[in-house]
């Protein structure tokens, strides 16, 4: 990223939060929703812009599970491991995902295509087990549906409508 552009982006992101007390977490949320993660160069720029030490920014990023330091895969698959989903078979879904994609939870496939994550209770426990793909919710998922879901997204990405993402 070129420096001038970065500076502009950062001052846009910080925006009216710049002078508010306790703004760091809110600004990090904004960064992550723009880039999908918190890139190091952006943290550096924020540190200059808000005049807070980089160490303090990292201290906060690493404490909170929600913030990511690495770019997400093209598709992020989040498996709910809340209690209801756990009881209704979420571990089996996760195993199956890990088996099909050949990665473990928290990893991204080599081609950068899929990332598998575990999340806690998406608030639709009535429909357990639940997983989301790029925010789209799949409810009452069965193990044998996993393959189908993955191939659907793989086909979509390869089909060239690049980065088309369905919002929930």
């Amino acid at each position, binding site marked *: 990223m070129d420096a001038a552009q970065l500076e502009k982006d950062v001052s846009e992101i910080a925006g009216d939060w710049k002078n508010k007390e306790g703004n760091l977490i809110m600004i990090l949320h904004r960064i992550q929703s723009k880039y999908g993660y918190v890139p190091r160069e952006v943290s550096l720029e924020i540190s200059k812009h808000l005049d807070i030490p980089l160490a303090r920014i990292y201290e906060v990023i690493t404490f909170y599970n929600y913030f990511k330091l690495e770019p997400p895969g093209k598709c992020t698959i989040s498996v709910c491991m809340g209690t209801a989903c756990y009881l209704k078979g979420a571990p089996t879904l996760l195993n199956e995902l890990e088996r099909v994609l050949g990665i473990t939870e928290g990893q991204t496939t080599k081609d950068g295509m899929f990332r598998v994550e575990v999340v806690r209770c998406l608030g639709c426990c009535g429909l357990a087990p639940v997983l989301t793909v790029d925010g789209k919710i799949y409810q009452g998922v069965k*193990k044998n549906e996993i393959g189908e879901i993955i191939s659907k997204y793989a086909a979509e990405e390869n089909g060239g409508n690049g980065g088309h993402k369905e919002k929930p």
Partner: protein
Amino acid sequence: MIKRIFIRDTNSSSADKARDFCNVLRNQLREKQMDEKVQLIRAADMGVYNQGIVMRILPDDLLYGQVEEKDIPRIVSETICGGKRLNDLMCHHAARQCRIVLRNCGVVDPESIEDYIAQDGYQALAKVLEQNDPEKVLAELKTSGLRGRGGAGYPTWLKWNLARNVKESQKYVICNGDEGDPGAYMDRSVLEGDPYSVIEGLTIAGFVTGASKGYFYIRAEYPLAIERIQKAIDQAYACGLLGENILGSTFRFDAEVRLGAGAFVCGEETALIASIEGKRGYPRPRPPYPSTQGLWGKPTVINNVETLANISPIILKSGKWFAGIGTETSKGTKVFAVTGKVKNSGLVEVPMGTSIREIVFDIGGGAGSGKKVKAVQTGGPSGGVIPEDFFNTPVGYENLQKIGSIMGSGGMIVMDESDCMVDIAKFYLRFCVDESCGKCAPCRIGGTQLLNLLEKISDGKGEEAHLAALRRISFAMQKASLCGLGQTAPNPVLSTLNYFEDEYRTHVLEKRCPARKCGRLFRYSIIQEKCKRCGLCVRNCPSDAISGNREKGYVIDEAKCSRCGLCLETCKPNAILRG
């Protein structure tokens, strides 16, 4: 007159069909040029379960259930255009619930402040500001007996009074919308379904305590709740219900949303405060309590979403009315998210004092799986299990504590015979270990030790002495941990151990898991008489654990088997045995 239609797919097992249904309905309304006169709203919860697509039509107040696409033309022409009631679609469901907190969910459009106001919204704030007597509000709350719904059950009036009595020009009120219990979604439903009532409650809290600023701390994982609260705040500002001179009074109150970032410990008051301050969410010792020294060192009141949603009805209908509902020490209603092995999974709001049996069987419809219900778990990672023998217990703060659980924020997970209590304890404990902030040793080290012991037990390496060790470490954690997370993390272990010690013993002594959950304590084998030698299992096994051929038959290598169960699922003649 404009009609409003609330729509929800109340079937808990299927994929949500409400969206497609709405689209079809919207198109047909457009064909009849009725789309301008009808507003379609997808409801978050309507207190009706397993009735398929349900629609509530207002102002006619008709409730249709099991509605299908083929019914849409009739509904449009006869009910919406003709005002006629279609008796065959009317939904009759037992009105066993008592909706105070959820009163507006599925009735008021959560994105329209006008709608909220039309349903007596902001009447309570108007009354409070007109009387201009905070003491009177406190007295009303005291009479009502309202206690915090976030877990600890501290009397709300007392908490407000503490903050009110501190002489300080700047004070804060915070709505705790962190909803950390992994398996509960009461607060989310209220924030999404009736955001205004929570804002009104928080505004009244501000007025009574003398705080001019309020925060909504909401989990980042709840984007719709965040969006709705933000919209509602914006609308309240536009209507003069936030900001300066609210409703013509001298009272000023500002509100803003702050997001959580995926840390369970941030539901704890002092950690939540640190998080709003933009820091790591580490708890700190109390006292000083937030009511004297909270956010930025100023007096701060923190209340749960559900607590705040109770405020307006109490003010409008009186504390005496509220106190008339519930038990001696627990007043009003409680919302539970009943999930797990239950037929009608969903939110229920019942008067305090309702028995667990009524909730699980009469409202929830029982296990629904044909298996026997074994226990419920309340209070999430801080709570405990309640075996079926105790299901006649009326729910209330003290009652649940007496039987080794807690009311908690309202998660109620139903478990049946196929659930293993060691596994459950392990699940909750792993959650707490993952979420421990690591600041104090009892929680950090004790939690890991407990988890190690539980893992040994479920792996078949348990010894009898481990059971005593579990109890010992648990007591130490309860006594010595700094914050509520560590103090309550052993509860799921202790309560399963107390009620289901036999099950633990079977794991330890017989190396057997009666529910066949603990992977190392059961195995898959092939019943040779039933096996048709098709070889499907060999091809399906992801671990290459099955060997053999059509002539000799097949065997499963226990050492290689990962217990995924794929063979059991795919075998047509049911020749795989799990045991």
